[in-house]
């Protein structure tokens, strides 16, 4: 199979994630879309690793996973806390800093 297909898939997933971040209001969904973008990047990394025949891309994808895991912990904690205090998970409601 042509290795470029992996890159197409990666670009497609990234686009889906980016559009999701921009158009969705639910914080959880936005969060999931961010994860989708990160994983699309991971796919691209691994693909390039295969393409170049070395392990640099795979190492980078491990880093991304670790960061994503940390981000999930912090991000979910924030979302839960905001939901508890404001009874809402909409990102549009969290615009206090604007004022």
């Amino acid at each position: 199979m042509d290795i470029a297909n992996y890159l197409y898939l990666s670009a497609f997933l990234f686009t889906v994630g980016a559009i999701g971040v921009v158009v969705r209001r639910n914080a959880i969904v936005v969060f999931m879309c961010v994860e989708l973008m990160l994983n699309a990047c991971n796919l691209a990394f691994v693909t390039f690793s295969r393409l170049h025949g070395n392990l640099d891309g795979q190492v980078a994808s491990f880093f991304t996973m670790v960061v994503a895991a940390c981000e999930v912990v912090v991000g979910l904690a924030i979302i839960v806390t905001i939901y508890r205090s404001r009874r809402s998970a909409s990102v549009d409601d969290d615009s206090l800093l604007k004022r």
Partner: protein
Amino acid sequence: MTTSTHLVYLIALPLFSSLLLMLLGRLADKWGHLLATLVSATAFGIAATEFFAMQGRTGEARAATQKIFEWINVGSFKVDASLLLDQLSICFVLLITGVGTLIHIYSIAYMSHDENRRRFFSYLNLFIAAMLLLVLGDSYLNLYVGWEGVGLASYLLIGFWNQKPAYATAAKKAFVANRVGDVGLSLAIMIAFAQFGTVSFAGVKQAAHTASPAALTAIGAMLLLAAAGKSAQFPLQSWLGDAMAGPTPVSALIHAATMVTAGVYLVTRSNFIFDASKTAQLLVVIVGVITLLFGALIGTAKDDIKKALAASTMSQIGYMVLATGLGPIGYAFAIMHLLTHGFFKAGMFLGAGSVMHGMDDEVNMRRYGGISKVMPITAVTFGLGYLAIIGVPPFAGFYSKDKIIETAFNAGGVKGILLGGATLLGAAITAFYMTRVITMTFLGARRWDEKAHPHESPILMWAPMAILAIGSVASGFLLSSGSALVNWLQPVVNPANHTHAEEFLNPLVVSGLALAAVVVGVSIAVMKYRTVAVVAPADVSIFTRAARKDLYQDSFNEAVFMRPGQSLTSGLVSADEKIIDGAVRGVGASLVGGSGGFRKIQNGYVRTYALVMVVGVLALLTTIWMVTL
């Protein structure tokens, strides 16, 4: 030069007493005037001792100096706060402390009903200290300190009754006019420093011949401006008439006998500058002549006795300034007239004060008349001063004024005839207005109110008047017999010992002319003022009207300086508001408006920020792609 250790007490004592009376406030009300008078008398005692000690020394050793402390020491520029008592200063020191003490004594009675008498005496002592510093300083910078000090004391004393707005304004007017002169003095000091690198009298005298004529003329002109400000000379003369707002003893001491003669002192002290610059000397002569006629003309129309005397002071100082402009010979005569004038004019001011004291502070001479019957002592002392000022022999003014007229004639050529003629005319007008004053005040029918009860003043007031009257009688003869004062001052003011090469007219002829002028002036006044209307007549000639308005000096100043100054400042204010403030506010407003526009971009929605990031990244990538293609 002899070094002395107690010159400083002359200044320190009155200064200390003045500060003490100011600091103690009401606590010193009971004895403040006594302390001030005692201090002034002590200063006179020190001065007299110094004078006799000085007579015991000869030649160079006559002058005494005292270094008080090192004042400025910057590189090559050194100024010590040191005092110099030479033949010229001692004349002033004796006059200041002597007349000053008499006027302190007089003021004890004159101000006895004033609840602020202590403050008054504190200011008087401040004046004595500053004036002594002025005449004792051994450099222009030291003189300048005293110069400003007497300006301050004069301001405080003119505005002593500052609860009356007109008096406070008069004080301000005097201060402002003096400031104009002070600018001249400071410029003169700066030019002298730039030219010679020193500001001491001795240093400048030594270096004077090395300077360019232009620089000398500039220094001379600036010194003359300073003298004009302090001595109420043309064109800065307008403040003196209003300065009569101060209590009468102040008018006698500061605005007749001492402070207003500081300009004459300055010119005389700077004789080395003026002798080296003919242009500056000519300016001095012109200012002197203009002022002596100007003041005399104003004096002819004033109904306020103090303003008439003030105009006379202006005119007499014009005589002195004229004499100082006549070269090395003139200085001694200027100082002689200054000393005799100090006696008779102070005496007459005190006489005027005595009349006012008895007449409930009435100053309008048209409301006087026949006062000699109720105030005989005042009338006699005033009369002696009168005879002295118009120059009747053997009274003091005859000797001193006659010498000035003579020197003016001897100036040579057309200049001499013009100057001599002007001084003779001045003498005639002086005789006219002084006769007018004495006729309206002491002679003729009574024109005072029913309510007024004029009475002779207490001994504390008439005793100083009597002493000054004796001075008016005798001082001229004493100072001129055997050319006593001329010889005494010669080492300071005329070191080359110049004498007149030729006499234009025989001195006896000059005296005859002067006496004739006096007779003319007196007889016109006697005929004109046989009867005096209580209300000043309105249908008078244009000259009288001009003289009543002080020859339009105030209107002139208002039109030429005040109005343009006001429009300049209001123009500057609006320029400040519109241009400078406008620029500052404009920058602020445009930033506020601009940031308000930018603020709208920050809408607070996370997705918008994310979209901006995405669009930005896409734009970046597109650019890179386009470039690398």
